[in-house]
């Protein structure tokens, strides 16, 4: 019986890959296998989610060295009889994808945001033409390397049936020397780069209410931003947090707009956000028309409820 193998150096993304692998494996009556490299914690996490985990312990296989990871996974595919490998489409995963596909003689798709099994084919959706279009593509052949966009699928829930076995792989000495790794420091505010923006407008009652909005921003993993009057007229926030014509143009994954009417001078700065949520007490406020999700409600109440819901 052939199989599908998943690998990511990141625990959370590996659990997401299990979800996708499940879709494919179910359709084919395969089982899902997972390779964990030098990561005992991930072995536990994945086996708890029902995967057959193969633990590779070999200090020569460094995540920083895509070439060696590819060799290790190729061996794993051979030993485990897997023809499809799922990787995460983060930077490490994307770099690995091409190398692994080449070692395996496989076809490869990266940046996959949706997957649908259609008979023999695995239809994958990905952005094309720089995001102008979404293409549905599949690999015509048995050997496939598919790299899945982070957060496109929910992480697999806990499930029985998992196991952990050791797997020996031989790799050549690494030609990459890791000198230093510096984890990102998250203290400085940069609203242009934040994945999530919670944006306060003149609907906010008082400066004191900002604290709750800021806390919401933190819970959503983002930054606090504002419309211009909040900074220039009321001076509740510094001007480097202003979005719009005279402020910054941002394209976060998520923008939560609170008490903002949606004047064009503001919206030019946020219209490229992937998902827009608007909360405004006026049902005729224009901002509702440019939102994916809109609520006609008092923002203070909503902020409070959201803070509770996300606690």
């Amino acid at each position, binding site marked *: 019986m052939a199989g599908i193998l998943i690998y990511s150096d990141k625990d959370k993304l590996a659990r997401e890959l299990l979800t996708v692998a499940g879709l494919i494996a179910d359709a084919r009556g395969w089982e899902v296998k997972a390779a964990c490299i030098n990561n005992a914690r991930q072995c536990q996490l994945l086996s708890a989610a029902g995967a057959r985990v193969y633990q590779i312990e070999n200090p020569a296989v460094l995540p920083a060295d895509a070439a060696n990871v590819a060799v290790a996974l190729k061996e794993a595919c051979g030993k485990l009889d897997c023809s499809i490998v799922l990787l995460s489409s983060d930077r490490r995963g994307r770099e690995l994808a091409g190398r692994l596909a080449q070692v395996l003689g496989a076809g490869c798709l990266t940046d996959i945001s949706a997957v649908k099994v259609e008979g023999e084919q695995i239809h994958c959706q990905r952005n094309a033409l720089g995001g102008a279009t979404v293409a549905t593509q599949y690999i*015509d052949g048995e050997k496939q390397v598919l790299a899945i966009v982070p957060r496109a699928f929910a992480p697999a829930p806990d499930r029985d049936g998992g196991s952990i076995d050791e797997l020996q792989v031989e790799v050549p000495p690494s030609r990459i020397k*890791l000198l230093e790794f510096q984890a990102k420091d998250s203290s400085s505010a940069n609203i242009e780069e934040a994945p999530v923006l919670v944006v306060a407008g003149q609907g906010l009652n008082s400066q004191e209410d900002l604290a709750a909005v800021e806390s919401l921003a933190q819970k959503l993993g983002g930054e606090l931003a504002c419309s211009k009057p909040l900074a220039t007229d009321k001076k509740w926030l510094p001007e480097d947090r202003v979005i719009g014509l005279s402020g910054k143009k941002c394209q976060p994954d998520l923008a939560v707009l609170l008490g903002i009417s949606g004047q064009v001078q503001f919206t030019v700065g946020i219209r490229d956000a992937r998902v827009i949520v608007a909360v405004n007490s006026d049902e005729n406020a224009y901002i509702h028309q440019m939102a994916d999700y809109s609520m006609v409600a008092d923002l203070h109440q909503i902020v409070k409820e959201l803070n509770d819901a996300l606690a």
Partner: protein
Amino acid sequence: MNVVVAMKQIPDLQQIRIRNRQPVLEDIPWTMGAIDKNALEAAVQIKEAQGGKVVLLSAGNEELEDTAKEALAAGADEALLIIDDKLDEMGSAEIAKILAAAIQRIEKIDLIIFGEGSGDNYSGQVGSRVAEILGLPQVGYASAIEVQGESLRVSRSLEDGKELVEIGLPAVITVISGINEPRIASVTQILKAGKKPKEILDLSDLALDLGEICPVKTESNLAPESDRKRVAVKSVDELVAALKGENLIGR
């Protein structure tokens, strides 16, 4: 130090219009991919510091000779071009084999630089595949490259941090757009680009074994349907569920 920079010729994305959800590609001019400009700039900076030359490598349709002028104006010393209209239909796997075969014709190459992904498809496979075919070590997503004798110190920028690695030469590096600000070519450089040395090959000039390839097939390629969903949400619970559905919370 001899550096090869790979460039993909892509349609000018800013000029693509959507009609009935279909991208209209007729009459769109071809241009050099955006991140490839950063790759070229990185190569030119290395050459300026270390000596040697920068060879532009590209495979594409007959417009390529013109498109290559962009890179030659911006600092490449010579070009090796594989021109064949069949290339437009080929995927990353095939292109990687073609580029690798072409690189093997160039004498004494120390470094091969790619952009992290092409401007149109952004698949990011070709650099890794070429490295594997040529049996070279690779470092992806470089945000700085420093030459130290026979090896490089490369800073790479990852989602969760920055990594500093050392890699021996020859090697393959892919760069992110933040690595540098590509220079703008002057009028003189633009006008001289066409006069720089170039070698033009077609597919039959390369001893190619496309071998085992599982090709990528495209079912459809359409613009996303509507911009904003405009869903009226009645409660916070509903909103939270919707955001979970978008994978925006609980990650």
